[in-house]
């Protein structure tokens, strides 16, 4: 297992370097000059342009700029945003906990409902439940997020008044951010009702963000289960007289898990990159909107640094998925 882990870790380095280069190049390939965008309709004089050009270091050749960026990254310095003038690192870690908290809730929600639903559908293949579930999953998968979120807000926040419209916490609660996770910070604050408020604020965004992963997980679980259920050893297990729960839950599900975990891993990776629509609609202070705004403003340090950090997170998730494969299927770790 340790050798397996090491071999996975070694693939990290070239990927990391590649991501650094791509994130650096990507934003510079786009047309649009950050200085001109910053000046807007007013424009600026040639002398002023030249001054800012030097200040931002654009007068250096690209390889030198990249080298400066790379050595900065290796020393933990991702540069400073052109717009807010704050270190990219600080901005990222002010926002990332919000994205992480919401992503985790969404994926837990998706797994908690999607996985059992997929199993039940597979076991009851062709019956009403199966067909109803699969058509619902198709609807969920093709749901326009923006419309779905507004619909939920109008019904549950507007008409029924059950959930808050947006934000992470009622404004009456005010406490310092310790971890950046509202669920934890609200408990640490010791303020009555703060935790409940954090939960209430999470409900709608979790549902909206979890809808597509839920549908994907349910469908993937169902098809993986169907494949496994037709195997000989399942027939043997049934013939031995094992209870259906034991057959389906233990023998079948465990073997159906590999493709399901792959899908879950991919979903987590996507969610961590920030859910721009969900974050915008629910005024959720995460990294999705931050990245998109920065691309429009051609805020080079934020875009390249943010991409690098997000890619690193996704690589960590992939590594976790690889480790899980090894845990579930001994054949995989033995091969290495």
């Amino acid at each position, binding site marked *: 297992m340790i050798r397996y882990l090491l071999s996975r870790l070694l693939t990290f380095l070239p990927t990391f370097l590649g991501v650094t280069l791509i994130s650096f190049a990507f934003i510079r390939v*786009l*047309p*649009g*000059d*950050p200085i*001109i*965008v*910053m*000046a*807007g*309709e*007013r*424009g*600026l*004089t040639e002398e*002023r342009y030249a001054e*800012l050009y030097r*200040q931002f270091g654009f007068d250096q050749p690209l390889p030198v700029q990249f080298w400066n960026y790379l050595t900065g990254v290796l020393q933990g310095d991702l540069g*400073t945003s*052109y*717009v*807010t*003038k*704050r270190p990219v690192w600080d*901005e990222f870690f*002010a*926002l990332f906990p*919000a994205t992480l908290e919401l992503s985790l809730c969404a994926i837990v929600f998706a797994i908690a409902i999607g996985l059992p639903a997929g199993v039940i559908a597979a076991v009851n293949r062709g019956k009403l439940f199966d067909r109803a579930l699969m058509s619902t999953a198709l609807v969920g998968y093709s749901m326009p997020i923006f419309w779905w979120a*507004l619909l939920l*807000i*109008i019904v549950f*926040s*507007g008409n029924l*008044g059950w959930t*808050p*419209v*947006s*934000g*992470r916490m*009622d*404004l*009456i*609660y*005010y406490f310092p*951010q310790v971890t950046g996770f509202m669920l934890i910070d609200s408990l640490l604050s010791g*303020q009555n009702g703060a935790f409940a*408020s954090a939960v209430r604020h999470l409900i709608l965004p979790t549902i909206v963000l979890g809808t597509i992963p839920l549908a994907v997980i349910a469908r993937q679980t169902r098809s993986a289960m169907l494949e496994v259920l037709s195997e000989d050893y399942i027939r043997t297990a049934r013939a031995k007289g094992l209870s259906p729960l034991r057959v389906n839950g233990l023998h079948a599900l465990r073997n159906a898990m590999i493709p399901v975990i792959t899908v879950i891993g991919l979903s987590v990776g996507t969610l961590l990159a920030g859910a721009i629509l969900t974050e*915008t*609609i*629910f*005024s959720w*202070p*995460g990294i999705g*909107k*931050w990245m998109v705004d920065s691309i429009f403003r*051609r805020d080079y340090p934020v875009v390249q640094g943010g991409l690098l950090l997000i890619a690193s997170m996704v690589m960590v998730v992939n590594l976790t998925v690889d480790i899980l494969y090894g845990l579930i299927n001994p054949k995989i770790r033995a091969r290495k």
Partner: protein
Amino acid sequence: MKLRNLMASAGMLALIGAGASAQTLVYCSEGSPEGFDPALYTAGTTFDASSHPVYNRLVEFETGTTNVVPGLAESYEVSDDGLEYTFKLRQGVKFHSNDRFTPGRDFNADDVIFTFERQWKADNPYNQVSGGTWEYFNGMSMPDLIASIEKVDDYTVKFILNRPEAPFIANMAMDFASILSAEYADAMLAAGTPEMLNQQPVGTGPFRFVAYQKDAVIRYQRNAEYWDAGKPKVENLVFAITPDASVRYQKLKAGECHVMPFPNPADVQAMKDDPGITVLEQEGLNVGYLAYNSKIPPFDNPKVRKALNMAIDKQAIIDVVFQGSGEAAKNPIPPTLWSYNDAIVDDPYDPEAARAMLAEEGITGLSMKVWAMPVQRPYNPNARRMAELIQADFAAIGVGVEIVSYEWGEYLERSSSVDRDGAVLLGWTGDNGDPDNFLAVLLGCDGVGGANRAQWCYQPFEDVIQKAKITADVAERTALYEEAQVIFKEQAPWATIAHSVVFMPVRPEVEGYTVHPLGGHIFTDVSLAE
């Protein structure tokens, strides 16, 4: 959470220290501030969160108008040659305190000098802090304009200019001229945390900054020692950052906020019909225009430009592009700006006459480019759609139009070029409520190849605006700018399209809110009815 509960439980704001009867005003702002030092930035969203609540300036814009009134300076005098501005400072004005800093003295001349020198002098220790590019200080040509700033005594400061410039006093009311504490700056420099000036602002303004959670909430508390007695009215001010306009509307309806800016134009009618919402409105301090390139034939001929202007159906544009949240423009400056010449009659929409005028000038089979901006602006919410309407209008008089567009940075750069092809859709939002800020910046000879997209340098117009620039008397300046607008109308370097109308939906319990023509959202005078 309903506001009633919010107010009832305001006492829970332990850190904010609210009293039992404390009122909390919640503003659903449209975006996050870039920082809290206004001189570093140019965005209105940033100014709403920094210069308006936290700071004051030597002179201020009276809320709701573009008139300049005393602020931290009780009065000022201008020398006869227009080169010296002497400000008498208000005494006994206190700066805010926070957990890093408690002021040891009142506001005085040192604060004024620090405020400007850090933006101006490269050897000021704060000149490079936070990557300072001082966009507005430079953009308003302050380095060229100011010869020196002198401390006459603790409560008198003299600005000496290189040339007379009447708009200077309006510049002093702009956000970049917000007065910071020199004492706080020194303390933060000594502590090795100079960036705190931008992150934990200390000013003399109506509200004290408490905390900012990035992209989520900004909290302020009433400045109990505010120099303008009796203000502000509410104890706590909270900005709940809500980027989506539909969600802001839902929050306003649900009572999660009291005031929201920038509604969707499509929602405005429903808001007006809702008894739980009051919609305030005013024309914005902006203009959207189509600028011909007056250096290139046939657009160098004023009659051709005039004919094209008469072919544009502005009312259709207001209905379709602005969905009613705009007003047809006849002058290059908006009606909320002083010296707006209301006596001017707009060119009629008359395609037949337009076609005849073109024929008279010998123009047949003309085809041209119309540039459509790739971004949304208050003065033009949908440039592509506007360009299509103009295309159809011009087609009706036999002029072919090709619509072009570029990425925003490219667009700004290419459209400035003197030999640019075709007519450009663009606009302007006023900075300082001075007509010079529209007429000289956008139509003066200095702007050719830059902000003057019509590349229009017309001496009779230039003479008038240059004279107005060095005239101190407001009545005289008004007459000059009115004359400039007449010349503009005759020469027609642009088709003036529209001024936006700003809508501000507020809850009925909100009292004393005034829509500010300069675009700021200001809560100093706002109170909440029980």
